[in-house]
């Protein structure tokens, strides 16, 4: 085995990953919260009002980063699902399943904040157009993955079945992304572009970018915290998980059985 494979196997072993994720998660949560508060403050009080939408556009600072994350989380989930199915790596099954609820949370926030934004701007809470409908399908895919994972008794079989569903659902990701170009839709086109000029001014763009960073960090914090629980659940009978359980016990239960 070369050094990289060796490192991968070491990191991928449940007790090691449990420990590393446990060390990182609180810091990631902390950094994400600090950045998030800075971005919210910038979005609400520093950024100027939009010439067309007035203050209502401020919903962009929560809506757009969450929408990006809803796709990013799906990509991360599908990638891990792929690794889990091909190489049967336990940690990848756990990571794929841990990303589903976080991705679902981002998708839910995207849909709800979009709806709240749509009411004053479009005059409707909801419309069955391409962007909105495909994002709703994304939410159902996440819920399907979570549901399937909970429906099967054997944890590893459950993770593999749900991974398979996650992998099939990846076709929806480009549909969500390109829907505003492929179809006529009420939803506005992209505001921020990686390539070419963004349609937004500097005082508006920094809170958006800081929030984007915050949501990415939050995603990994939450996935780490969730995969720790997943590993404990999967390896409940193993020595290391028992040690964690006993170390965590309230004092009287520890003394009760030595």
């Amino acid at each position, binding site marked *: 085995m070369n050094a990289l494979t060796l490192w991968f196997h070491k990191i991928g072993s449940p007790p090691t990953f449990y420990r590393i994720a446990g060390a990182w998660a609180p810091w990631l949560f902390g950094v994400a919260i600090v950045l998030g508060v800075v971005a919210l403050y910038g979005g609400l009080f520093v950024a100027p009002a939009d010439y067309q939408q007035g*203050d209502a556009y401020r*919903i962009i600072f*929560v*809506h757009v980063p969450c929408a990006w994350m809803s796709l990013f989380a799906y990509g991360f989930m599908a990638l891990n699902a792929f690794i889990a199915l091909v190489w049967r790596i336990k940690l990848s099954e756990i990571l794929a399943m841990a990303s589903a609820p976080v991705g679902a*949370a981002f998708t839910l926030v995207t849909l709800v904040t979009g709806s709240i934004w749509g009411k004053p701007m479009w005059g409707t809470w909801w419309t069955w157009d391409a962007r909105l409908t495909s994002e709703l399908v994304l939410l159902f895919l996440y819920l399907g993955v979570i549901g399937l994972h909970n429906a099967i008794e054997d944890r590893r079989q459950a993770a593999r079945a749900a991974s398979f569903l996650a992998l099939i659902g990846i076709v929806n990701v480009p549909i969500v992304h390109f829907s505003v170009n492929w179809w006529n839709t009420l939803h506005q086109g992209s505001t921020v572009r990686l390539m070419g000029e963004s349609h937004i001014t500097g005082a508006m763009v920094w809170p958006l970018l800081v929030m984007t960073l915050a949501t990415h960090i939050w995603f990994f914090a939450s996935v780490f915290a969730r995969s720790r629980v997943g590993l404990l659940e999967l390896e409940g009978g193993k020595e290391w998980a028992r040690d964690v359980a006993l170390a965590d016990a309230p004092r009287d239960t520890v003394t009760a059985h030595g």
Partner: protein
Amino acid sequence: MGKYGDYIWSAYAVFVIVFAIDAIAPRLSRRRVLAEIRGKLKRRAARETSP
């Protein structure tokens, strides 16, 4: 926030509430899983000590 105040604040509130739940959920399930593991250990210890 002008006439859109209600919309903006409710959108931000949804954002904060959903992620507060997202942060708390794994802590609660971790507690449950650890209690289950301890329960299993305790039952096994009881089986081994009983005649």
